[in-house]
């Protein structure tokens, strides 16, 4: 059972990393805490569901269109709303939270609630690993999660846009002197963050269902992971994902499922008590945040 718990803890960790990585990317580059993140996650899932079930498009096409649409929605949100309040942290939070709330409550008002709102699994098979059957969808979560983390690292280190992202993240004024358009980069960062939320939805939703409430849940999980890891730190997100992911599953197995939330919250409190900026947080220092 220990091996099984390890496997499911690993999967849980990657689910949390996938949920948080987009939020973290946006904050790390533009400094915008995108509180509409959970709503964008759910919006992309509903869009995939609609394309798949009402327009009968293939799953992969539905997912691809939804991801692109969510990225555009993120960019539009920045250009037409956030740009006007850029730099005013509280206004940014209120604006994004308002947008997220509107999206989620609109879905609820439209009656998009029920067990039928889910996305199909990639392959409906499971394999025996260390004496435990694990389904392919969960294995895909780990594989795609790893690919995204590595891909993001390569992107931010070896592409001109990625290097511009890092430049803005390190020092916006200096980056401007090098001809980097900070507004364009911030637009792209919100857009990429939204795209990562959409990718996470495509992979994770097949394990459960789509519901407006999930949007709030995703936002809270992303916030918790980013705060523990240190806002803006990708390495922090990965470490925090593992801490909470393992704490949840091991509590579940060895203490009791109803203690899961308490132990997770205790882990958050403990980390913040020891290091208030989060494990890898450098908000008060002008250091690299990606």
């Amino acid at each position, binding site marked *: 059972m220990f091996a099984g718990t390890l496997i*499911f803890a690993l999967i849980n960790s990657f689910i949390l990393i996938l949920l948080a990585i987009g939020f973290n990317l946006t904050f790390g580059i533009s400094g915008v805490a995108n509180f509409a993140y959970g709503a964008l996650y759910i919006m992309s899932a509903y869009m995939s569901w609609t394309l798949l079930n009402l327009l009968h498009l293939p799953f992969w096409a539905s997912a691809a269109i939804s991801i692109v649409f969510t990225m555009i929605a993120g960019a539009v949100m920045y250009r037409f709303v956030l740009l006007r309040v850029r730099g005013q942290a509280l206004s940014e939070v209120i604006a994004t939270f308002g947008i997220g709330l509107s999206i989620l409550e609109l879905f609820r008002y439209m009656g998009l609630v029920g067990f039928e709102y889910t996305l199909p699994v990639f392959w409906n098979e499971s394999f025996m690993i260390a004496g435990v059957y694990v389904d392919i969808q969960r294995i895909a979560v780990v594989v795609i999660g790893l690919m995204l983390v590595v891909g993001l690292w390569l992107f931010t280190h070896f592409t001109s846009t990625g290097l511009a992202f890092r430049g803005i993240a390190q020092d916006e004024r200096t980056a401007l002197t090098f001809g980097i358009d900070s507004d364009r980069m911030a637009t792209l960062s919100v857009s990429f963050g939204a795209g990562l939320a959409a990718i996470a939805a495509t992979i994770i939703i097949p394990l459960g269902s789509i519901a407006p*409430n999930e949007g709030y849940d995703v936002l809270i999980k992303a916030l918790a992971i980013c705060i523990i890891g240190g806002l803006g730190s990708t390495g922090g997100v990965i470490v925090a994902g593992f801490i909470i992911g393992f704490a949840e599953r091991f509590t579940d197995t060895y203490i009791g499922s109803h203690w899961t939330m308490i132990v997770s919250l205790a882990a958050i409190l403990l980390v913040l008590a020891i290091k208030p900026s989060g494990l890898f947080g450098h908000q008060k220092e002008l250091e690299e945040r990606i």
Partner: protein
Amino acid sequence: MERKRLIIGVMLAVICVWSLGTQNVRAAEPIVIGVATSLGSLEGGESLKAVQMAVDEINAAGGVKVGGGTRPFKVESIDLRDSDPGVPVPEALLGLEKIILEKKPTALLVGPFRSEALTAGMDIIAKYKVPLLGTIAMSPASEAKIKADPQKYKYVFRTCLNAVHLVQFLSGTMAAINKQFGFNKVYIMTQDVAWARGTADLVKKLYFDKSGWEVLGMESYPTGASDFSSALMKARAQGVQVIMPVFDMPQSGTLVKQWNTMKVPAIMAGFISPLAGSEAWKIFDGTIGGVLNTTFELGSAMGASKLPASIDFMNKYQRKYGKEIQAGHGPAPSYESVYILKEAIERTGSLDPDAIVAGLEKTDRRGAMGRIRYDGVHQAVYGFDPAEMSVSLVSQWTDSGKRVVVFPDSLAENTIQLPAGLKSLK
């Protein structure tokens, strides 16, 4: 002069006609039914539709006879959102009070989704003296309150199944499994809410502990939990034969998916709300064959050919809304509650809340759920014979995607079948 008289005459005639018209309008002033529940939930949403269907039928047939005339019903609703994780009880209670004060309903139907909200909301209902016919919240805590202070809480009735009656059906199903296959090792998994925990505790205390069963473990999950792998691994490691789930949240569908993909060698028998409706087979990609699920009230999500009224109700709903009922809890008692209220008002000829309560206490109706009567603490009486009481049913998903009634015997179409890969001990 003539012209003046003519004008005055016309004005008087207009006033007379207007007055008569007003009287007619007043006579036809609708009786407001307030539906206050978690409308975003499947159970709440379909219950509201069932209430509207009954109201439309009653209005089309002339309305409710009261005070020497007839008056139509009118439905007003409010979303209490109490099924959502994280919505505190006081927020739901605000909604309950709001609909009472703003819409001034003669009675409330469906009521809070969570028992925690119902139990706390009983004081608001008592304060404003508005009869409530609850059809979703299930904890017997509300009956205990009525028993403790019947004069204060007499306005609260429950037409749906409660946790105590659910225990009868779950125990009966477990006894049938034990008798047919010799299984006696069970793992209990519940949602961490009052009615589900209460149900599981009662089944353990009243059945498993007294019948020689070994309860390998009891896990309760917070609403919204979506990973059940740890409990399934523990159950498997201990040689589980039966898994008894008790959940009413959408995420509980994940439990079935994980039970299937982790190939846990046990029969699943209990209550998982997403499995109640006919669409579950498609939603779960045909991976739920063999699962036994409880439909809380006959007619909600599933009827039985042995009680045609239950099938009629489901067909009427499908014709009206173009879709089958998918919620296994709520719609049938919500529909019946409108007729129960109509009969109570007509029985006493009054809209006075105390008179309505007296009328409701005399309820004896035969409908989609069987025979409906309330006991001394205003709970509809449930049993195994629809000719005598209201009934629940337990059905089993076949490998071809059909639901077959297996319990109680009065409605059963077949015996329980073991899922592929499991072997009987008998």
